[in-house]
């Protein structure tokens, strides 16, 4: 890799880290606006979120293929979400919830409720 490309690469990854950090801070804070998780390109973004109990979490499917949001222990389960459809739940019980798409099980995510 040439030197100038390398610098560009480092800059980009630093920027990405900064964005990720601010998103994490926002999700921990929770608040009336709730937290959004985008389903895009067969993945959950962000894949892991930490929220305060009482926070609303909304998943929106941006793919051209249907997906679901199902916790591994089946404590929550969305209906099948077609393109642009949403699934909202209120995080009530503190704990760590791993979830996946039951149609495409390689898609996994995590919600930590504090």
């Amino acid at each position, binding site marked *: 890799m040439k030197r100038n490309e390398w610098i560009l690469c480092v800059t980009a990854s630093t920027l990405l880290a900064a964005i990720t950090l601010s998103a994490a801070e926002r999700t921990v804070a929770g608040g009336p606006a709730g937290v959004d998780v985008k389903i895009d*390109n*067969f993945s959950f973004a962000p894949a892991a979120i930490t929220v305060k109990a009482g926070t609303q979490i909304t998943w929106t499917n941006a793919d*051209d293929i*249907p997906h679901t949001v199902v916790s591994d222990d089946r404590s929550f389960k969305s209906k*099948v979400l077609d393109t642009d459809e949403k699934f909202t739940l209120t995080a009530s019980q503190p704990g760590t919830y791993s979830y996946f798409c039951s*149609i*495409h*099980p390689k898609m996994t995510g995590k919600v930590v409720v504090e």
Partner: protein
Amino acid sequence: MPLQKNDDAVLSSHNPDGIDRRGFLKCMAWAGTGALCVLEGGVLKSYGIDNASGIQKAAKGELSFVQISDSHMGFNKPANSDVIATLKAAVQKINALPVAPEFILHTGDISHLSKPEEFDTVDQLLKSASTKDVFFVPGEHDVLEDDGKQYLERYGKNTKGAGWYSFDQKGVHLIGLVNVMNLKTGGMGSLGAAQLEWLEDDVRHLSKSTPVIVFAHMPLWNIYPEWGWGTDDSAQALSYLKRFGSVTVLNGHIHQTMQKVEGNVTFHTAASTAFPQPHPGAAASPGPMKVPAEQLRGLLGITDVTYTRKGHALALIDSTLE
């Protein structure tokens, strides 16, 4: 004739000594546009599609059927806004085959969202096929919301469990498997213990010279685990088929043709009739691939399968909807 001449083809005559790697790769590369790959005595042989004897050989087979897959009825996104038209084209292609197939295999994702009207539309369109018998296995899109209850009501007559079954046609044993139920987090397709037990028992009584054809929606070989293109417990299923001289595995799900030969087993995936998906790892995700309108039908297709008792020859011919 559904096959088209491709100027890039070198394999204008078949190699009597079997195939070399170069020949095999050419055969694979051809699959999307109309290749003829013939398995004779466990050895894959390639024919150019302009080779009349090769075509004739396939046409005179004793068992001939067609595989279609992934019709995704109800899909209406940019990758194909008219999946009815492309399924109709596939039916026309079937009706134009030189030898009428004895039955049609649909390897799943009949519907896009498991809606009753989507299944109804496919059933209606398939009625215009010259071949009336259609055998199905479900894709993950056919068992949404209700754990496959509706699918079983429609297509599950004379099947076991989630819809698996076997039948015999002209000395060939065909097995339809279901690998889209109870998928585990982080995993791929899954057959499950009950089905594996049934499979072991189903093939127990067969002589090892019986040609076996297995069909299921998701690939029974690990094509690209990162995208879930495989089946977690497929190795167990294949272990029950090791003693057979000729095993052919037909799958869908990945919306593109792909072929691999491993020992006595030929693996093959069929194209979709609805929309193409990217080659493994070639895009950010396996989602529907939008191509220029004039290229779409060149990436969709049907697979014609012919089995000839003499010499245990099995021919798989992929043809596009162009």
